């Protein structure tokens, strides 16, 4: 029987990561590993209070310490020119670095010590003495809900049909769900090397998800001409959203480099990764569902309260999935943020939807038990055949296939509707599912191609690769388009001077940059055909879609006799290379269709009845992300998402001491990301049906939907195993005994 969908075994055969070898052998140099002549090292001094002011800063001992070249703080900063242009009274910006004596959160950078070695800088930093006028900090979300505000950019609460319609329904669920703050904790800590090549020329080697975004922000901050700022970010060891913006430590490195007139390297300590580069914000949600006895939803009310900092409004799409996922006539949502003495959160993998889906998909599961209805049946009873929010057709939606494939793979028929009914020895066994979705986006990008007579092709784009295997995917797209074997194609990225690309975030890289690869490949083919036509008339009618490279030849597949050696097509003016560029941008498809990727996660959880320990035994995720371009890296990316979702469900929680806002578990020993022993057998399945409208490859986004829905699937499995409904993550053993 022929099948289109991809399973684990299908992916084994696909192209391996093209930069895998340099990564595992250590040949790939990440920012912190880059060495430069005369490199100096910056180490941050942080506030140890959560709110108040610095009244005295004694840097004398630090300045006299061996090797120390500068101690920079608000007292002597060279200054960030952009700050002077901003209204000093309105703090709705990124934390202004070393701009005043004010402390907004515990762990705020207040000084940097620059020395000739890292150890001397660390020692110097330990000698800086700070005196504070302490204020009273507020960091607890639950205790400060009265401070909740509607974000300035939100005009009004969302309403479709009538408010609180769930109250009219025969079956109701009304519950509160909380998600603690979570740290991104990529393996590679945030790192930067900054140097001023001239008084008006800045170069950075930096961990970032967008070299051009970082360059633009730095140019603006330091009032430099954009072409005088260069950002190199060749390898990024994971980011998950934490490198989507310029953070204070990056501004500090630039200031320090200005002060010492040498390159400054600044690498965050693992602990600083917990509070200096964003986090998924602690969020409290209230969800109410109302349904008729056949499971048809009549109304959903959904409220969200999330943390933000005192100086900046952070918002995310917690409620977006509730508005579009199911065919429900009445929906009202309310989104609030609570300003507290914490640093500003950041988008974290599946931003918003990962949080919102936890509440929505758990509430649906609760409803399924009240209705005595299978949770998949309940979702199918409310299946949306078009986007009920935008009232538009989906560009593509194969969610029913996802439910079906996954149910077969995990053996959904083994699930008993009665919680606690399945037992293996001392372990209770449960099954859970949840759905995930995330918008499928496409932006604009450019691409440069350099083709040589030996048949090699170099592609260049400013896009980052934070781990999904961008170069691999782009290589496959080019190879499939042209017929040039993958070994002859190389893809360079992570450099702000390369052609335009967006940040790598929000699952849009393949759609955006992949489209530019297709465009540049087509341009290359058309240009070569034009040159071929001068030698052979039958090339005059060749179009990109029928032109292929075969060995040393270019072939028009419509004209079998057309074969021509491409080496003969290089003109006298550039005999050694042909450089082609292309731009690609979305059209008006956004106005006609609603674009989303979908996922369904199935979890088999075993819960020890005496100790409350949860072990995930099996995870099956079925994904509708359009055509899968690079099956092996897609599988890897999906596995990472499932692991992140398991961490969200079972182990991860950033804890603050609300007496002073300090992070209690900042270290990798105390903040529990899942370890190998927590990872179950994982089976990824891709429906692999083309999306006809988003881009030429037929792909949609993948990076987010592989985490969105995992945590509720785990919580639902735990309920099915035990009859215990845990509405506050993570589900640690203490909550189940």
């Amino acid at each position, binding site marked *: 029987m022929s099948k289109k969908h991809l399973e684990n075994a299908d992916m084994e055969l696909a192209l391996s990561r093209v930069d895998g070898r340099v990564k595992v052998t250590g040949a790939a140099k990440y920012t912190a590993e880059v060495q430069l002549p005369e490199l100096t090292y910056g180490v941050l001094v942080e506030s*140890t209070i959560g709110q108040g002011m610095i009244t005295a800063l004694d840097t004398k001992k630090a300045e006299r310490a061996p090797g120390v070249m500068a101690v920079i703080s608000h007292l002597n900063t060279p200054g960030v020119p952009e700050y002077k242009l901003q209204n000093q009274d309105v703090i709705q910006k990124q934390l202004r670095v070393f701009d005043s004596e004010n402390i907004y959160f515990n762990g705020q950078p207040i000084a940097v010590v620059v020395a000739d070695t890292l*150890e001397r800088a*660390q*020692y110097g930093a*330990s000698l800086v003495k700070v005196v504070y006028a302490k204020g009273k900090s507020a960091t607890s979300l639950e205790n400060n809900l009265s401070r909740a505000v509607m974000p300035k950019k939100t005009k009004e609460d969302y309403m479709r049909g009538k408010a609180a319609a769930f109250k009219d329904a025969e079956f109701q669920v009304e519950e509160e769900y909380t998600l603690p703050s979570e740290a991104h904790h990529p393996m590679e800590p945030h790192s930067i090397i900054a140097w001023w090549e001239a008084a008006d020329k800045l170069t950075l080697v930096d961990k970032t998800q967008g070299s051009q975004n970082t360059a633009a922000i730095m140019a603006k901050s330091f009032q430099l001409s954009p072409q005088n700022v260069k950002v190199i970010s060749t390898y990024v060891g994971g980011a998950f959203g934490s490198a989507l913006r310029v953070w204070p430590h990056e501004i500090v490195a630039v200031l320090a480099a200005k002060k010492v007139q040498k390159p400054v390297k600044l690498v965050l300590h693992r602990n600083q990764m917990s509070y200096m580069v964003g986090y998924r914000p602690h969020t409290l949600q209230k969800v109410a569902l109302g349904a008729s006895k056949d499971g048809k939803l009549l109304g959903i009310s959904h409220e969200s309260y999330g943390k933000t900092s005192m100086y900046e409004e952070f918002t995310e799409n917690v409620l977006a999935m509730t508005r579009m996922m199911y065919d429900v006539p009445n929906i009202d949502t309310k989104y609030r943020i609570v300003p507290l003495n914490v640093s500003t959160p950041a988008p974290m993998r599946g931003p918003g939807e990962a949080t919102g889906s936890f509440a929505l998909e758990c509430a649906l599961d609760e409803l399924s038990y009240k209705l005595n209805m299978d949770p998949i049946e309940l979702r199918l009873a409310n299946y949306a055949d078009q986007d009920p929010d935008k009232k538009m057709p989906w560009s593509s939606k194969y969610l029913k296939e996802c439910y079906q494939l996954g149910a077969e793979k995990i053996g959904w028929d083994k699930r008993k509707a009665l919680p606690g009914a399945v037992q293996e020895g*001392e372990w209770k066994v449960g099954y859970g599912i949840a759905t995930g979705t995330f918008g499928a986006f496409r932006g604009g990008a450019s691409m440069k191609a350099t083709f040589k007579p030996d048949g090699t092709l170099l592609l260049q784009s400013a896009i980052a690769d934070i781990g999904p295997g961008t170069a691999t995917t782009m290589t496959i797209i080019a190879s499939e388009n042209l017929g040039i074997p993958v070994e002859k194609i190389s893809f360079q990225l992570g450099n702000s001077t390369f052609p335009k690309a967006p940040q790598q975030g929000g699952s849009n890289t393949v759609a955006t940059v992949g489209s530019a690869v297709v465009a540049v490949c087509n341009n290359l083919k058309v240009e070569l055909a034009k040159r071929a036509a001068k030698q052979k008339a039958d090339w005059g009618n060749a179009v990109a879609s029928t032109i292929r490279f075969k060995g040393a030849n270019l072939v028009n597949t419509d004209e079998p006799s057309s074969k021509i050696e491409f080496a003969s097509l290089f003109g006298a003016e550039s005999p050694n290379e042909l450089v082609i560029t292309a731009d690609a941008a979305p059209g008006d498809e956004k106005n006609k269709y609603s674009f989303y990727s979908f996922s369904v996660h199935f979890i088999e959880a075993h819960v*020890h009845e*005496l*100790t*409350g*320990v949860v*072990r995930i035994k099996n995870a099956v995720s079925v994904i509708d992300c359009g055509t899968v371009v690079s099956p092996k890296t897609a599988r890897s990316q999906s596995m990472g998402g499932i692991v992140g979702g398991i961490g969200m469900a*079972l*182990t991860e929680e950033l*804890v603050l*001491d609300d*007496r002073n806002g*300090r992070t*209690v*578990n900042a*270290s990798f*020993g*105390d903040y*529990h990301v*899942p*370890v*190998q*022993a*927590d990872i179950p057998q994982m089976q990824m399945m891709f429906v692999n049906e083309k999306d006809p409208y988003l881009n030429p490859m037929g792909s949609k986004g993948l990076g987010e939907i592989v985490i969105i829905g995992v945590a509720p699937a785990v919580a639902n499995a735990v309920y099915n195993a035990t009859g215990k409904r845990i509405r506050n993550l*993570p589900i*640690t*053993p*203490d909550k189940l*005994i």
Partner: protein
Amino acid sequence: MNNFQYTRVSSPAAAIAELSKDPTAKLVAGGTNLIDLMKYGVMAPDKLVDINHLGFNEIKKDNGTLHIGATVRNAVASGNADVLKYQPLLSQAMLSGASPQLRNKATMGGNLLQRTRCGYFYDISAPCNKREPGSGCSAIEGYNRMHAIFGASDTCIAVNPSDMNVALVALDAIIMVAGPKGNRKIPMADFHRLPGTHPELDTTLDKKEIITGIVIPDNHLAAHSTYLKVRDRASYAFALISVAATMDLEGSTIKDVRLAMGGVAHKPWRLTAAEEFLKGKTASLENFNQAAEIAMKGAKAYEFNAFKLKLAPNTMVQALKTASGIKA
């Protein structure tokens, strides 16, 4: 980190001499805990005395009694054939601690001297009586999820983090020590101390003494033993509760039993009263439940660790079930 001197010694006497000469000197072997603490600024010795070359790296068997040298690596001891045969509990406990990388470096003596993982002890901006006597305890009214339920004082509620120590106290191990006044033996149960008014002191080891080895007397417990560690993730996490349970069974009658708990006190917590209750009784769920109730007498919880009052007896019952092999 402060500047410090590093010296390597080749005899126990030289190590003792270094400690006698310089009160801030610290011994270093695997360094898996000390170096971390130095990086965090929690400990700042002027001198590190490297004792990796004292010849304490052997495991010897004398009939059924095991002598494990102080600098034997945890990875070596936990995989040693005699340890696995005579004291499988010890191996199991060590393998539930840390990670393979850490166990490859960490030594037996160093593990005995592991310091608490209380987050406030590690955060030098927070008051901590253990780190800075008299400064106060941040944990008592702070985030104390991982903290003690037995034997705490109003100066400190930290717990001993070691898994190995829990097994050693259950096995009546003896700590062999050398010092300026000669050699002495410290029973494991007396090696660690409760915080009392001096939480800065983890053990009864004198500052000028060094650990030379650990002796584990022969017993008849190997056939029925288990180390059960309940934690927030499957590996590389400290115990919420751990229980070492080992017994000598004749049919279903408990001839001898040893029980100790980790994650509950400033020292590995031997459950003597529960042992006394079980001796001579039948291995049954009912008796295990009663023993657990006895074991929990005197337990006191704080704001975030009240769950331990239930998780501790549950874990103990499960460990007894597993060790005895009873099904019910």
